[in-house]
């Protein structure tokens, strides 16, 4: 076996030899191959990610652990992170998506937190070819989340040609933990025992991290075929018991460190715990419970069997922890112990079969530096899009577009209400949860259209951050932290590398401008087929604290006579990156968000609205489909309708521009003066659009021209996606 068989370059192989002071044996080489893979080591992305703002008053744990943690209220903390499962979902959509959900749930549980919400971010190729994949992925997300009892409270889905052979499945999980129960992988102490809990180990997903997720399928067509027998299967039933058992074990107070077994299985879990705890670990691999008797140490170390957790417990606590675990029909299996030296020592029936420094495995991979000359952001690409004369059929067409239309066909397959916290679920732009544990709520937003980053990754990254934080702010919530799921092509291609740096740059600059830290995230590379990469895609999750979660700011206008205004109207309502432009086959570049003004403007708007009496307004951020889509959603299918008037010049831009920072607000007549005065005092710019009226009709006047649409027809377009007959395996 040579370095290339485990995905290492010659230079990396030499670095391994140097760290060991000798050549690795085949097992040791395999360990390095897995942990020095892109997926586990972040060797390409690490130094770029280090530039993200990571500190803030609410941050309890930043990037580096299983999930980021922010302080929500008193000693109640929120752990949250996004994780991708793109490649496995392409190979087997149902199980790939299900195991993705299981994996991110275990990350949050490993922090000691009880998961309270999931959100999924999906990307597919154009329909109808992608229908079966979508059906399978939605099935898988639902199978796992529904069964384990964590509500999927929202998500997003977009379509684009680049995703056809590279669907994206990113899942965000958030969980609640009290400060005293906060766990990490850094607390292991020398002399303690190392235990495994959960599913016996099989040959599932071996090489998943190093090969499957770190290479293009087109470079290795045989990889897909040879991966097939080892597809991981999600077992939410064991997942549920493992979650309860782990939380119960932590509640005994005896657990020093927890780590889930994810990518690169036991290798990653043991090396990470040892490295982060500044100690070492000895494992007796013959004690690991196996599903297939004939497995080798190599297979045991690299198996990615799901639903397994590693716990470190001192001898004295073992009995108590074992009891807590056994209640859930699981066993606490001793597999090794923590030692006071920087080593990962593996034994097989007593004989040492591998012995390498834990720090070399978990922290030793040579990383790629960000070139000095990578000045971010680059100059913006030209973006002028011709604006033709307005056509009335564009409105229903935009509403029916796969990137805009109603997502009910997806979220009805998710249990979004379990745990009875969901005040606002997936039928809104943000999710609002009330807590049984504390007098505050949680607001969650997820966003990241690839369209916006297609031609200008910086603009797309910054736009996604502005939109996610904007949605949280305009739900009267205090943003506490961000998590970012970055998905790109092959980073060894200069163009992709550039896109990646720009995307991170956009996220960094926007997060900095909003002063909201990034507390964790995920990077998935090699999302490309035959040299064609996906659009660089940053899935941004934002979490906020809501002080009145049972009375969220409404997003639907209740009656006739309300004034409609567009707040923060862009001077140039650029159409680049919008659904409208995409529909016409000329996407252009997304207008760069002006980060010097957007954060203050959104905060001022929030403060202004907060001073109005309750029930005096409703508000929506402007997103996919622009003002037009926001308006139709705010009016609802039964009305009231609205009469609005716009300037004839740049009419199309006004209606369909997706420029960040815009918000649609409706004001009750009695509160109009207060709004006006407040806006003037706070220098909030707005454009008067018109008023709601009783007719369930939207009418638009621009100069001498006028059009009108029945809301019923617009909503029929919005809801045009019907549930297809079940296309997949019965």
């Amino acid at each position, binding site marked *: 076996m040579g370095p290339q068989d485990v995905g290492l370059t010659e230079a990396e192989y030499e670095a391994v030899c140097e760290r060991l002071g000798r050549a690795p044996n085949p097992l040791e080489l395999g360990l390095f191959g897995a942990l020095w893979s892109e997926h586990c080591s972040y060797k390409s992305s690490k130094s770029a990610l280090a530039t993200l703002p990571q500190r803030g008053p609410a941050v309890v744990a930043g990037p580096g652990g299983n999930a980021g943690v922010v302080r929500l209220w008193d000693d109640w903390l929120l752990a949250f992170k996004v994780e991708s499962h793109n490649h496995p979902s392409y190979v087997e959509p149902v199980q790939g998506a299900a195991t993705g959900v299981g994996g991110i749930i275990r990350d949050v549980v490993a922090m000691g937190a009880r998961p309270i919400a999931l959100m999924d971010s999906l990307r597919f190729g154009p329909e109808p070819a992608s229908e079966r994949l979508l059906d399978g992925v939605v099935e898988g997300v639902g199978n796992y989340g529904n069964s384990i009892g964590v509500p999927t409270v929202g998500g997003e889905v977009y379509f684009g040609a680049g995703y056809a052979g590279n669907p994206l499945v990113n899942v965000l999980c958030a969980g609640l933990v009290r400060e005293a129960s906060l766990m990490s992988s850094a607390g292991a102490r020398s002399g303690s025992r190392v235990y495994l809990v959960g599913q016996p180990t099989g040959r599932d997903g071996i090489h998943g991290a190093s090969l499957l997720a770190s290479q293009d399928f087109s470079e290795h067509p045989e990889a897909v075929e040879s991966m097939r027998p080892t597809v991981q299967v999600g077992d939410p039933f064991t997942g549920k018991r493992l979650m309860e058992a782990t939380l119960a074990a932590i509640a005994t107070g005896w657990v020093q460190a927890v780590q889930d077994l994810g990518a690169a299985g036991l290798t990653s879990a043991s090396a990470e715990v040892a490295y982060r705890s500044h100690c070492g670990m000895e494992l007796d691999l013959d004690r690991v419970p196996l599903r297939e008797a004939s497995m080798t140490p190599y297979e045991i170390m690299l198996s990615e069997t799901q639903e397994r957790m590693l716990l470190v417990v001192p001898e004295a606590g073992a009995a108590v922890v074992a009891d807590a675990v056994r209640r859930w029909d699981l066993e606490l299996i001793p597999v090794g112990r923590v030692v006071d030296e920087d080593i990962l020592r593996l034994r097989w029936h007593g004989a040492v079969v591998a012995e390498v420094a834990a720090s070399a495995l978990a922290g030793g991979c040579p990383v790629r530096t960000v070139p000095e000359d990578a000045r971010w952001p680059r100059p913006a690409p030209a973006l002028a899009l011709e604006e033709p004369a307005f056509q009335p059929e564009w409105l229903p067409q935009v509403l029916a577009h796969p990137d805009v239309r109603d997502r009910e066909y997806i979220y009805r397959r998710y249990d979004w209400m379990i745990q009875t916290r969901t005040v606002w679920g997936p039928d809104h732009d943000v999710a609002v949860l009330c807590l049984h544990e504390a007098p505050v709520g949680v607001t969650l937003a997820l966003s990241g259209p690839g369209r916006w980053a297609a031609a200008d990754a910086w603009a797309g990254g910054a736009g996604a951050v502005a939109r996610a934080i904007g949605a949280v702010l305009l739900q009267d919530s205090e943003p506490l932290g961000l998590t970012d799921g970055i998905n790109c092509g092959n980073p060894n291609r200069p163009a992709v590398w550039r896109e990646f740096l720009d995307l991170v740059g956009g996220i960094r600059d926007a997060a900095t401008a909003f002063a909201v830290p990034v507390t964790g995230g995920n990077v998935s590379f090699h999302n490309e087929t035959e040299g064609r990469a996906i659009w660089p895609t940053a899935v941004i999750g934002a979490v906020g604290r809501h002080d009145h979660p049972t009375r969220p700011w409404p997003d639907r206008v209740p009656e006739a006579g309300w004034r409609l205004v567009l707040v923060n109207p862009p001077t140039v309502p650029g159409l680049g990156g919008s659904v409208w432009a995409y529909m016409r086959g000329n996407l252009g570049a997304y207008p760069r968000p002006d980060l010097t003004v957007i954060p203050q403007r959104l905060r001022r708007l929030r403060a202004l609205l907060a001073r109005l009496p309750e029930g005096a307004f409703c508000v929506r951020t402007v997103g996919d489909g622009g003002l037009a889509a926001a308006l139709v959603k705010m009016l609802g299918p039964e009305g009231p309708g609205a009469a609005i008037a716009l300037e004839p010049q740049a009419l199309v831009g006004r209606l369909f521009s997706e420029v960040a920072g815009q918000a649609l607000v409706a004001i009750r007549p009695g509160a109009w003066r207060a709004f006006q005065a407040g806006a003037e005092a706070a220098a909030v710019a707005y454009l008067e659009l018109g008023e709601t009226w009783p007719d369930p009709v939207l009418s638009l006047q621009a100069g001498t021209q006028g059009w009108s649409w029945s809301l019923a027809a617009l909503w029929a377009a919005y809801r045009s996606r019907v549930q297809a*007959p079940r296309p997949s395996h019965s």
Partner: protein
Amino acid sequence: MSTEAVAVITFPGSNCDDDTVMALGRLGVPVVRRWYRDRDLGEARRVVLPGGFSYGDYLRSGALAARAPIMDAVEDGVATGRLTVLGICNGFQILCERGLLPGALRPNRDGRFRCTWEWVRVATAPLHWPEFRPGTRFRLPIAHREGAFTLPRAELDRLWQEGAVFLQYCGPDGAVGDEYNPNGSMDQVAGICRGRVMGLMPHPERAVAAYLGSEDGLRFLRAWLASEGE
């Protein structure tokens, strides 16, 4: 409404147990929790089998939990007439699998999980529950993959004659028709009641506050707690 304690059973994989306990708590009812391996229900004379995915819904929903040790105690309590039982969603499936209620809950007609708000109406007044008057409507969520109530036609006809068909899916105005059937249940059946054993697919424990979508679940549970003739 009696304030005697209600037992809520947790099976491995139950996941609406906490919500059910909280909902009963909102009504001021003391709750005792029971574990599937327990062999008795203690003093409790009322028991709720909550929703969820007991045993992962593997094999058939409810089939594995129906064989759990605690179900012997439930069956005894029903046989001796001292126990009042409510099965919600997975709990309903468990009761059917155990044979404590007739019929079976098969996969939804489109084969998919479905989580939506639905209307249900009382089709037949259950003998021991005066507050469930025929025609009373509730707006409640459903969340299941296997909720299509099924049994041979002649047996369902017999259930109608016996007065066991308790709840049906309906429109907001109470109209019954296949357009209001979310899962392909025969005769739009959403719940069954025989003697003191009641089961339904919708989740009353989730509809406990206006800000969660409806308070009808509290109304439902209050009516259930007001059973007579103990």
